[in-house]
């Protein structure tokens, strides 16, 4: 029975009749096993039929639906309110650029390296960078610091957001520096926190006002501590950072001595 709706010439029968099938609850529960909902009305699982276009959304509404992507694969999408932007939900991050970049700092202490992009990022604010692998950069001991750093225009920006995926609820430190092309570093700060749990973590970093003649600045959001040390990958999202130049990525590292380090990295786009 594919059409579970009560038909006009059917008898209305509730659950538990000794001889007749339940027709009143049939559609809501999703028919015979495996049903979509339990008898208390809660969802057991949801099946989405393929849509060819996004559904309409009103104010304060978002829609979840299935649609084929450009490659013909059925994916789950989310549409923002008021017929807003469509976004693929989860699992949609694709590596668009990666490398294992050798880096020889000029001296001990904080030094900057450049990771060369081979292509510009169309939507850098939606991208994530992951420093995964066993590169020697991660073997600089407790002082290891890594940052995603982009050149941006922060004339009207007073904050940026770092999204990190933490492997454990452990003490974590976010460091940042704002660099001005002429005078060098003009702001720096540190955010310390202990996440309540493992998983994605968004931290909004507020910076002070920047002198009005600075246009293009280099902003670095640094993640250190448990986020990048230890095993497994760590991801730093460039969410909400607006770039004006995105053909490379600068990295601020702390070197304990002059040596050649290898920095494994990947750039993901949704």
């Amino acid at each position, binding site marked *: 029975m*594919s*059409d*579970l*709706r*009560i*038909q*006009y*010439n*059917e008898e*209305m029968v509730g659950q538990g009749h000794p001889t007749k099938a339940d027709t*009143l609850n049939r*559609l*809501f*529960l*999703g*028919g015979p096993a495996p049903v*979509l909902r339990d008898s208390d009305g*809660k969802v057991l699982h*949801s*099946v*989405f*039929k393929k*849509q060819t276009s996004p*559904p309409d*959304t009103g104010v*304060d*509404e*978002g*829609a*979840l*639906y299935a649609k084929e992507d450009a490659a013909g694969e059925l994916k789950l999408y*989310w549409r*923002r*309110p008021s017929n807003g932007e469509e*976004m*693929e*939900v*989860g699992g949609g991050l694709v590596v668009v650029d990666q490398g294992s970049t050798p880096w020889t700092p000029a001296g001990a202490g904080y030094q900057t390296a450049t990771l060369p992009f081979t292509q510009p990022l169309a939507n850098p604010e939606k991208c994530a960078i992951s420093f995964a692998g066993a590169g020697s950069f991660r073997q600089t001991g407790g002082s290891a610091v890594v940052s995603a750093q982009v050149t941006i225009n922060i004339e009207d920006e007073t904050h940026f*957001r770092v999204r990190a995926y933490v492997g454990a609820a452990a003490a974590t430190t976010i460091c940042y520096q704002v660099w001005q092309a002429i005078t060098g570093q003009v702001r720096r700060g540190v955010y310390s926190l202990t996440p*309540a*749990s493992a*998983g*994605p973590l*968004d931290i*909004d970093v507020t910076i002070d006002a920047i002198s009005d003649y600075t246009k293009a600045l280099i902003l670095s959001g640094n993640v250190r501590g448990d986020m990048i040390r230890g095993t497994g990958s760590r991801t730093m999202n460039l969410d*909400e950072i607006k770039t004006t130049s995105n053909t490379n990525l600068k990295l601020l590292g702390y070197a304990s001595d002059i040596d050649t380090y290898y920095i494994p990295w990947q750039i993901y786009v949704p």
Partner: protein
Amino acid sequence: MSDLRIQYNEEMVGRGHPTKADTLNRLFLAGGMRSPEGKNHWAVFKKQTGDPPTAADELALYAKEEGGELALYARPALGGPAWRLI
């Protein structure tokens, strides 16, 4: 028609009546959100101001505002920490 519930003074009519509108299935099908076999075409989430409670062996999917934009969240069993899906 914004309230799709069967009203107390409405006649209960199933699908396929030659002249009368289907009232019994109306709320569930909700303007094309679901197919006649009860599967989703899409699901619309109205903005929530807090995280919904979850019991053991349950996961809640809902929409909540963060940073001025409506985002999709999942919350695991027993009121665990919610995470943003998108």
